[in-house]
C-alpha cells in the first residue's frame, strides 16, 4: 500500500497512533450522536411547542365546543321545561346555565368579545325562555310562545356566535396542527437524513479506521510469519510514528538482525571450514579433547602419525582409552614404566596441560607433543614429527661443540700467544733496562745508547704485539669491558709521566689541563689509559717541537655526565683524504708516514673500538700543516654491558634475587645496598662479618657483596669462612670496592693490568715508600726463569729477601715451610697454576691471609679477575707498568699486614 498523502484523511489517519485513531473515531461518532440528539431534541421541543400551540387551539376549540354543547343543553332543557314543566328540567336547565357560564368564563380568556356576545345572547335567551316557561306553567300559551320566540332569536344569535367561534377555532387549530404536523414531518425527515448520513459517515470512518488498523496488522502478521519461516518479510507498513510504524521499524530491525545473523552464521561456517581445512592442512597432528577428556576433533595427520590407534579416534572417545590403546598396541615406548604407570602419568600430564614432551615412538620416531588447556577446560594436543629436527639438532649440537672447541682453541691460542709473545720480550726489555742502569752507573754512555736501541725496539715490538693482540681480541669479540670507579687526575698524571719520554723525544711540550670539579669516573680504566696513551703518542709522533695539549672537560648533556678528552697537537696535520683513511686498520694516513713516523697504524682503530665499548664517540679535526685534534667523549658512568651468563654456581641473579651486603661502614653499605636494589634485587644488609655469616646461613642469599676493605674487620677472614662453609661455598661473593677512601679502594679493589715488563723506576719508588722495619721476605712464584730472576734482582736490590718457586707445587711447599711476608704469584704456570695455588693458599688457615700479589701477563677475563679478587689480595698485571703497581701493591699489603700484625 502506498502511503497516502499526509494531508488527506487516510493519510492523517495513518500517521496517528491507534489510540488516537480510536479516540478520534469515538469522538466523531459521539459528537455526531450528541449533535443529532441535540438537534432532534431541539426539533422535538419545537414540535412540542407547536403541538402545544395546536393543542391549545384545540383546547380552545373544545372549550368553545363545550360552550356550544352546554348552550345546546341549556336550550334543550329549557325547551323540555317549556314542554314538560318538570322541575327536573328546570334544574337541569339551571345546571346547564351554570355550565355555560363556566365555559363562557373560560372563553373569556382568549375570545372575550365572542364570549361576551354569546353570554349576552345566552342569558337573554335564558331569561326569555324562563319567562316563557312561567307563561306555559300559567297556561298562558300565547305569551309563552311569544316569549319563546323572542328567546329563540337570542338563542340563535348566541348559537351563531358560538358556531362562528367554533369554526374559527377549528380552522386555527387545524392549521396549527397541520403546521405542527408538517414541521414534525420535516424534522423527522431531517433527522432521518441526518441519522442516515451520520450512520453512513460513521460507518465509513469506522471502516477507514479499521482498515488503517487491520491492514497493517495483517501485513505485519504476514511479515512475521514469513520471517519465522525464514523468508523475506515482504512489504511492511510504512515506518512512522504510529504503533504500526514502530512495529514495522522493529520488524525491519529484526530482519536486519536476522540477516546479519545469517551472514555471521555463514561467515562462521566459512571460518569453521577454513579452520578445519587449515587444521587438516597443518603438517602436525592435531587433536582436541573437551573438558571431560573426550575426543572432539582429530585431523588426518594425527592418524598418519598414529596409524595403530587410528580406528579408535572417533568423537566421544575418552583420552584414557586412547592412551591405553597406544600402550597395548605397542605404538609407544613406555621407557621402563609399566603400562598403568605410563598411562597414569600421561593422563595426569594431559590434565595439567601446558606441557611439552618429546616422546620416542617405535621406529625411532620422535614426536613432540605439546598440550595446552583451552579456556573452557578442553585440551589441545599438537603432535609434531621432530625426528628430522632432532637429528638436525644432534648434528647442530655436534657442530656447535666443534665450533666451541675451535673457539676455545682460538682463545687459548690468543691467551698463550700473548703469554708466549710477551714473556721473551719482558726479558729483552727487562734485562735491557737493567743493563742500561748498570751501564749508567758505570758511566758507559755508549752502551746505554745501544742498549736503549735494544730496549726501544723491544718496546716497539711489544707495542706492536699488544696492539695486534688487542685488535684480534676485539675482532674475536673477546675484548671485555671492566668497569670500575676511579679518579681521573691520578690517571692523567700517570699517563703524563708515562708518555713523557715520547713527548720529549721530538722536543714537544705537553700540557695537561682538566676542569675543576669532580673527577670521578666509572669506566674501564685500562682502556681509557690506553686511549689516552695512544692519542698522546700519536700526537707526539707527528709533532716536532710543538705543543701537545690534553684537555679534559666534564659536561652534562641530557642529564648525563660526559667526559670530553681532547688531544691536540701542532703537528703535520692531515688532509681530508688522509682523515678518511684514518681508522682503517693497518693503514696509516699515508704509506710514507710509517716510515717517517713509525707506528703500526692500529692505535687509532683500537682507540675507537675502546671508545665505543665505553659508550662514547670519537672524532678528529685536522688542518694540514697546522695540527690535529683528536677527541673522544665517554659517559662518566660507563653503560654496563648486559648481564653476562650467570656463573654456573650462581643462580637467580636475573630477576629478583636476594643479595647480602656485608660492610661494617654504614655509608658504604647503604651505597652498595642502593645499587643492588636499583638493579632489581632484594638487599639484605649486615653490619659485620659475623652478622653477615649468620644472615647468609639463614637467608641463603643468591649472592654476597662483601666489602673487603672493612676498617676494623678482616674481610679476608669473612671470605675465608664463606669459602669454608659448605652451605655458603657456592654462593658467589663479589668484592665491592665502593669505599670512602678512593685511593685505598683503588689500591685494593682495582685490578691493574700491568703488562710486563715492569718499570723498575716505579717499582723502586714504591718500594722505597714501604715502611721499613718489617721483614721483607717475598716468595716469587713464576715459571719463566728469566722473569723469575728479573724479579729476584729487582726485589733483592730493594732490600727484599727473595725466595723463588718455579711452579705452584713448589710454591706451596715453600709457603708451608716458611710463610713469607708476601707472595708474588704468576698465574700462567704449568702444573698447578696461579689460580690453583691461590685457592690452595686460601684454604690453609695459616696462609689464608697471606698477601698475594699476582703478576701476570695473561689478559684476565672478568670471571678470572673476579675470582682473583676474591682469592687474591691484589692482581697486578705484569707488564710495562706492572712493577710500579706491584711495588705499590706490595707496600699496601705490607702496611696492611703490619697493621694486622
Amino acid at each position, binding site marked *: 500500500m502506498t502511503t497516502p498523502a499526509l494531508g488527506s484523511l487516510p493519510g492523517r489517519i495513518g500517521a496517528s497512533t491507534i489510540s488516537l485513531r480510536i479516540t478520534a473515531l469515538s469522538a466523531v461518532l459521539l459528537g455526531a450522536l450528541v449533535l443529532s440528539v441535540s438537534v432532534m431534541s431541539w426539533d422535538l421541543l419545537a414540535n412540542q411547542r407547536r403541538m402545544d400551540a395546536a393543542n391549545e387551539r384545540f383546547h380552545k376549540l373544545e372549550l368553545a365546543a363545550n360552550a356550544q354543547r352546554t348552550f345546546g343543553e341549556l336550550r334543550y332543557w329549557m325547551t323540555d*321545561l317549556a314542554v*314538560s*314543566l*318538570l*322541575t*327536573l328540567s*328546570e334544574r337541569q336547565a339551571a345546571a346547564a346555565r351554570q355550565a355555560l357560564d363556566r365555559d363562557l368564563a373560560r372563553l373569556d380568556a382568549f375570545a372575550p368579545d365572542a364570549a361576551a356576545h354569546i353570554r349576552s345572547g345566552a342569558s337573554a335567551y335564558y331569561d326569555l325562555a324562563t319567562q316563557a*316557561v312561567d307563561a306555559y*306553567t300559567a297556561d298562558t300559551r300565547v305569551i309563552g310562545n311569544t316569549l319563546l320566540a323572542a328567546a329563540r332569536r337570542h338563542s340563535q344569535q348566541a348559537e351563531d356566535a358560538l358556531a362562528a367561534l367554533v369554526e374559527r377555532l377549528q380552522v386555527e387549530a387545524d392549521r396549527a396542527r397541520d403546521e405542527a404536523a408538517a414541521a414534525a414531518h420535516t424534522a423527522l425527515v431531517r433527522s432521518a437524513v441526518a441519522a442516515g448520513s451520520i450512520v453512513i459517515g460513521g460507518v465509513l470512518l469506522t471502516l477507514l479506521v479499521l482498515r488503517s488498523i487491520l491492514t497493517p496488522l495483517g501485513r505485519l502478521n504476514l511479515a512475521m510469519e514469513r520471517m519465522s519461516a525464514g523468508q523475506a518479510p515482504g512489504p511492511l507498513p510504512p515506518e512512522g510514528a504510529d504503533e504500526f510504524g514502530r512495529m514495522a521499524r522493529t520488524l525491519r530491525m529484526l530482519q536486519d538482525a536476522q540477516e546479519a545473523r545469517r551472514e555471521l552464521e555463514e561467515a562462521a561456517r566459512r571460518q569453521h571450514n577454513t579452520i578445519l581445512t587449515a587444521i587438516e592442512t597443518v603438517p602436525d597432528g592435531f587433536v582436541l579433547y573437551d573438558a571431560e577428556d573426550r575426543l572432539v576433533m582429530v585431523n588426518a595427520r594425527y592418524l598418519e602419525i598414529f596409524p595403530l590407534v587410528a580406528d579408535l579416534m572417533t568423537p566421544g572417545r575418552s583420552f584414557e582409552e586412547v592412551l591405553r590403546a597406544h600402550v597395548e598396541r605397542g605404538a609407544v615406548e613406555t621407557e621402563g614404566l609399566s603400562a598403568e604407570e605410563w598411562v597414569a602419568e600421561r593422563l595426569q600430564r594431559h590434565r595439567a596441560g601446558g606441557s611439552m614432551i618429546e616422546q620416542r615412538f617405535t621406529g625411532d620416531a620422535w614426536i613432540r607433543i605439546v598440550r595446552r588447556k583451552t579456556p573452557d577446560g578442553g585440551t589441545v594436543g599438537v603432535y609434531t614429527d621432530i625426528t628430522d629436527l632432532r637429528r638436525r639438532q644432534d648434528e647442530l649440537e655436534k657442530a656447535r661443540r666443534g665450533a666451541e672447541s675451535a673457539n676455545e682453541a682460538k682463545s687459548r691460542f690468543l691467551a698463550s700467544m700473548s703469554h708466549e709473545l710477551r714473556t721473551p720480550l719482558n726479558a729483552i726489555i727487562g734485562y735491557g733496562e737493567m743493563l742500561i742502569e748498570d751501564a749508567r752507573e758505570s758511566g758507559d754512555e755508549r752502551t746505554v745508547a745501544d742498549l736503549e736501541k735494544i730496549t726501544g725496539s723491544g718496546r716497539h715490538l711489544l707495542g706492536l704485539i699488544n696492539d695486534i693482540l688487542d685488535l684480534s681480541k676485539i675482532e674475536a669479540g673477546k675484548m671485555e669491558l671492566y668497569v670500575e670507579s676511579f679518579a681521573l687526575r691520578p690517571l692523567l698524571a700517570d699517563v703524563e709521566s708515562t708518555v713523557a719520554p715520547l713527548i720529549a723525544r721530538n722536543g714537544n711540550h705537553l700540557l695537561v689541563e682538566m676542569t675543576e670539579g669532580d673527577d670521578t669516573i666509572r669506566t674501564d680504566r685500562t682502556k681509557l689509559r690506553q686511549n689516552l696513551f695512544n692519542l698522546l703518542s700519536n700526537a707526539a709522533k707527528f709533532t716536532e717541537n710543538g705543543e701537545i695539549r690534553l684537555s679534559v672537560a666534564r659536561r652534562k648533556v641530557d642529564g648525563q655526565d660526559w667526559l670530553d678528552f681532547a688531544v691536540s697537537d701542532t703537528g703535520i696535520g692531515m688532509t681530508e683524504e688522509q682523515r678518511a683513511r684514518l681508522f682503517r686498520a693497518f693503514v696509516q694516513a699515508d704509506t710514507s708516514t710509517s716510515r717517517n713516523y713509525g707506528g703500526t697504524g692500529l692505535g687509532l682503530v683500537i682507540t675507537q673500538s675502546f671508545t665505543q665499548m665505553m659508550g662514547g664517540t670519537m672524532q678528529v679535526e685536522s688542518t694540514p700543516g697546522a695540527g690535529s685534534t683528536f677527541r673522544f667523549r665517554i659517559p662518566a658512568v660507563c653503560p654496563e654491558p648486559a648481564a653476562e651468563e650467570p656463573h654456573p654456581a650462581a643462580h637467580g641473579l636475573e630477576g629478583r634475587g636476594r643479595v647480602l651486603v656485608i660492610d661494617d661502614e654504614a655509608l658504604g653499605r647503604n651505597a652498595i645496598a642502593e645499587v643492588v636494589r636499583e638493579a632489581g634485587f632484594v638487599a639484605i644488609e649486615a653490619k659485620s662479618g659475623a652478622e653477615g655469616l649468620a644472615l647468609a646461613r639463614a637467608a641463603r642469599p643468591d649472592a654476597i657483596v662483601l666489602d673487603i676493605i672493612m676498617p676494623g674487620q678482616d674481610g679476608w677472614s669473612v671470605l675465608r669462612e664463606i669459602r669454608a662453609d659448605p652451605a655458603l661455598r657456592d654462593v658467589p661473593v663479589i668484592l665491592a670496592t665502593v669505599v670512602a677512601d678512593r685511593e685505598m679502594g683503588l689500591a685494593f679493589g682495582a685490578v691493574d693490568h700491568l703488562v710486563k715488563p715492569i718499570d723498575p723506576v716505579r717499582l723502586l719508588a714504591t718500594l722505597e715508600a714501604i715502611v721499613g722495619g718489617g721483614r721483607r721476605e717475598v716468595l716469587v712464584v713464576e715459571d719463566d726463569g728469566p722473569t723469575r730472576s728479573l724479579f729476584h734482582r729487582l726485589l733483592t736490590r730493594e732490600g727484599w729477601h727473595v725466595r723463588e718457586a718455579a711452579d705452584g707445587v713448589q710454591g706451596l711447599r715453600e709457603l708451608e715451610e716458611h710463610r713469607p711476608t708476601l707472595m708474588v704469584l704468576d698465574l700462567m704456570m704449568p702444573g698447578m697454576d696461579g689460580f690453583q695455588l691461590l685457592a690452595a693458599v686460601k684454604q690453609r688457615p695459616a696462609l689464608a691471609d697471606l698477601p698475594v700479589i699476582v703478576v701476570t701477563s695473561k689478559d684476565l677475563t672478568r670471571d678470572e679477575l673476579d675470582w682473583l679478587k676474591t682469592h687474591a689480595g691484589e692482581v697486578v698485571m705484569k707488564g710495562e707498568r706492572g712493577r710500579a703497581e706491584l711495588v705499590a701493591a706490595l707496600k699496601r699489603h705490607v702496611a696492611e699486614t703490619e697493621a694486622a700484625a
Partner: protein
Amino acid sequence: MRCTRKGLLVLGVVAACAAAAASADNGSERAIGERLAGIIGAGRSVVSSHQGLINDPDIGEKNLTGERVVAEAVELYEKRRGEPPVTEGMKEGERRLVEAALAAMREIVDENEALIDMKGLGFKGFLPATYTRLVNERFAEKVGSEARVKFTAPPELVRNRKARPDAWEQRVLASELGTPGWPMGEPYTEAIEVEGRPAFRMLIPEYYSASCLSCHGEPKGQTDVTGYPKEGGREGDLGGATSITLFR
C-alpha cells in the same frame, strides 16, 4: 271572575258569613278541606292502584271509566273515613264543593279514556299525580272562586312546575309539615289572604304508599318509568301535600 260592586258586596256578605261560618266553624272549614283532600286523595289512590292496568300495552279496552274510578274512590273514602264524602247534613257549599270534586274526578278519567285504552303503548303517563293535577285544575275551573285544591309537595320533591308550592305552602312545608315532630297526617291550617281575599288555607301532608315508591322510591336518582329520577323515598315518608284554599 265576575267582579261587580254588588256582586262583591254580596260576595262580601256571603264571604263574611262564610267566614263567620268558617271562623265560627273553623272546624267545618277544616272538615271541608279534609273531605276534599280525602276524596281526591282516594281517587288518586285508585288511579295509583290501577297503574299496572293503565300501563299495560296489550290490553286495549280497560273499562276503566270515570264512573268506576269515582265509585272506587268513594268506596275507599268510606273505608278510610267511615262515611261517604257526601253526607246528609252537609252544608250546601260544602256539598257543592265535594260534588265538584267528584265530577272533576269523573270527567278527567273519561277524557283520558282513549289514552288509557291505547293499545301498544306501555306507559301512558296517566300518573296519579297527573290525574290529581288534572282533577284539581278541573275543580278550579268549576269552583275555583270558592275553593281551590292543589296537590303540591316540598319544592325538592315537586316534579311539575305547575305543582310548585307557593310561598305560603313552601313556608308551611318547611317549618311545619316537614319537621320531624309533626304528627303524621295532621294538617296545618291558617287563615290568610289569597289573591287579596281572605281565605282559609289548609295543608294536609300526604305520605308515600307502596305503590308510590315505584316512581318515587329507592334507589334515589334511578330513572323511573317517566324518565324522571327517583326521589328515594320510603313508605310513610312525606311525599307531598294537599293544599286546600277555601275563600271566605
